[in-house]
C-alpha cells in the first residue's frame, strides 16, 4: 500500500469530517480503514433548505428525487478509499458538489426569503476527496534508461593508466632511438632521394605515377578533405552494426589498405632516383628510420 502524504490525508479527513458532521479523528480512522464508514441515513441540514423553497410550486420536486441523491453520495465514499490507497505524490482532489442534492430547492427560493435562508450552510459547501489520480504523462517516453557508471573511478582510472603507459613508452622510445639529424641544410645539395615526412609518402608515391595536378592536388583535396569531411552526409545509412554497413566498412578498409601500401612502398621500397629497392638488400632510404637499424 502506497503511503498517502500526511497533509493530504489530513485535508481530506477535515473535509470529510465537515461533510458528515463527525470529528476529524473519526474521519481519519474511517479513511484508514480502522473504523466503519459513517453512513448518512438522511439528508441532514439540506432538508431545512428544502422546506423553505417548496412553497413556490414552480419546481416540481417529487419526493423520489430527494431520496435519490443520498445513496449516490454514499457510493462515492468507497471509491475514494480504494483510490486513495493507490496514491503516489500528486493528488488531484475532485470536488463533489453536494448541490445536486440540494438542487431541487433552486432559484425561486431567493425571491421568498432572502435573508433567513442560509444558502451556504456548512454541510453544503464541502470539498471531498473523491479520488486520487496518479500523475502520469500523456505520452510515454520510449527511451530506455541507459546503463551508466561513474566516471570516477571507472573511466578516469583506466585513462590514467593509459596515459602513464603512453608516457613510459614514449620515454623508452626516446631513450633508445635517436631522432635523425643530418648535415646542415644546404639548398645547393639535393639528397637523392628527397623524401617527405612519412605521412606524405603515400602522396609522393602517387606523384611518381600521375601528373602532380592529379596526384598532388586533386586527390588530397577532393578525396582527402572534401569527401572525408562530407562522409557522414553521404552515408545516410543509420545502422552502426558492421554487418549492416558492409559497403562503408569495405570502402574504408580498401582506403586503409591502399594508403598503407603506398606509404610503406614510399618509406621502404624507394631509393635513389625513386627507383624500386628492397630494404633488406639495399638498405633503408628513410632517415627517420635510420637509428632503428643502428640500434641492433
Amino acid at each position, binding site marked *: 500500500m502506497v503511503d498517502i502524504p500526511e497533509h493530504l490525508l489530513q485535508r481530506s479527513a477535515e473535509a470529510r469530517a465537515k461533510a458528515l458532521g463527525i470529528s476529524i479523528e473519526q474521519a481519519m480512522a474511517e479513511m484508514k480503514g480502522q473504523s466503519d464508514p459513517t453512513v448518512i441515513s438522511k439528508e441532514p441540514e439540506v432538508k431545512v433548505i428544502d422546506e423553505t423553497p417548496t412553497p413556490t410550486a414552480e419546481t416540481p420536486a417529487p419526493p423520489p428525487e430527494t431520496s435519490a441523491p443520498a445513496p449516490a453520495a454514499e457510493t462515492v465514499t468507497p471509491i475514494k478509499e480504494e483510490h486513495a490507497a493507490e496514491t503516489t505524490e500528486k493528488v488531484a482532489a475532485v470536488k463533489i458538489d453536494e448541490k445536486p442534492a440540494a438542487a431541487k430547492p433552486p432559484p425561486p427560493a431567493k425571491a421568498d426569503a432572502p435573508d433567513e435562508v442560509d444558502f451556504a450552510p456548512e454541510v453544503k459547501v464541502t470539498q471531498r476527496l473523491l479520488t486520487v489520480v496518479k500523475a502520469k504523462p500523456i505520452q510515454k517516453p520510449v527511451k530506455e534508461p541507459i*546503463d551508466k557508471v561513474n566516471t570516477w573511478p571507472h*573511466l578516469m582510472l583506466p585513462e590514467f593508466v593509459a596515459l602513464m603507459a603512453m608516457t613510459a613508452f614514449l620515454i623508452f622510445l626516446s631513450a633508445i632511438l635517436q631522432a635523425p*639529424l*643530418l648535415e646542415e*641544410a644546404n639548398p645547393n645539395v639535393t639528397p637523392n632521394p628527397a623524401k617527405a615526412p612519412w*605521412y606524405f609518402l603515400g602522396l609522393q608515391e602517387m606523384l611518381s605515377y600521375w601528373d602532380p595536378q592529379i596526384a598532388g592536388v586533386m586527390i588530397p583535396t577532393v578525396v582527402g578533405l572534401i569527401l572525408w569531411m562530407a*562522409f*557522414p552526409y553521404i552515408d545516410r545509412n543509420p545502422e*552502426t552494426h558492421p554487418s549492416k554497413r558492409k559497403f562503408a566498412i569495405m570502402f574504408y578498409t580498401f582506403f586503409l589498405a591502399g594508403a598503407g601500401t603506398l606509404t610503406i612502398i614510399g618509406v621502404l621500397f624507394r631509393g635513389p632516383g625513386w627507383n624500386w629497392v628492397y630494404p633488406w638488400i639495399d638498405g633503408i632510404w628513410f632517415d627517420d628510420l635510420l637509428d632503428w637499424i643502428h640500434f641492433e
Partner: protein
Amino acid sequence: MSFRDRLKETRAKASDGFRGGKLMSSIFRPGSPFRKGYVDSPRNRSYVVMNNVLYHLHPVKVKRHGVRLSYTLCLGGLSFFLFIVLTITGIWLMFYFRPTELAYVDIQNLQTTIAFGSLVRNMHRWGAHLMVLVVFLHMSRVFYHGAYKAPREFNWVIGVILLLLTLLLSFTGYLLPWDQLAIWAVTVGGNMAGYVPVVGAQVKFGLFAGLEATTATLLRFYVLHVLFFPFIIVIFMAVHFWRVRKDGGISGPL
C-alpha cells in the same frame, strides 16, 4: 604504547590536521579525495568530477560499454595527451632554439651539451609521429563504429579538421632542425602546393616566404608551428570535446 605506534598516531593526526585544515580545504573543493574525510560514496564520486576544472571535461557518468578499453582503446584521450606532452616538451625546446641560421647549431647543442636535451628532442619528434598515428587510428576507430552518424556528423567534420591541423603541425615542425632532411622534405611538400590550380605559385610563395626554402621559411614555419597552429587546434579541440558531450557522449553500443 610502543614508540612506533605513537609515531604512527602522530603522523595520522598531523595528516588529518593538514588535510582538514584551512589551506587544503580552500584549495580542494568538497568531494576531493585530497580533503579530510573523503569516503567512497556515489555523491563523492560525482563531486570528484564536478568540482575539478580538469576532470570536468568528463561527464559525471558515462555509458558502461564505453568504459571498456576494447571499445575506444583510449585513442581520443591519447591523442589529446600526446598533444599536451608535445606542448610541454615543445615549450622546453623553445628555450634553446632560434629560428635563424643558428637553428642547426642550436639543435646540435641540444643533443650534445644541454642536460636531457637529446631525450626531450627525441620525445618531441617521436611523440609527433605517434600523435599523427594515434589521431589517424582514432579516426579509423570512429569510422568502424559508425560513430560519425547522426547526431555526430559535424563532430566528424571537426575531427577531420583536427587531423589536418595535426598534419600541418607535424609538417611545419619537420623543417625546424634545419638539416638536409628537414629542408628537402619541406621542399618536396611545398612544391606539391605549387601544383594547386590557378593560385599554385602564390601559395608556394606564401608558404616558403620566397621561391625556395630559406631561413625566412624557417621563421615562417616556426611561428606557424609554435603559435598559429597550436592556437587554432586548441579551439577546434575545445569544440570537438564539447560536441562529444552535447551529442550524447560516446556512441554505441553497436
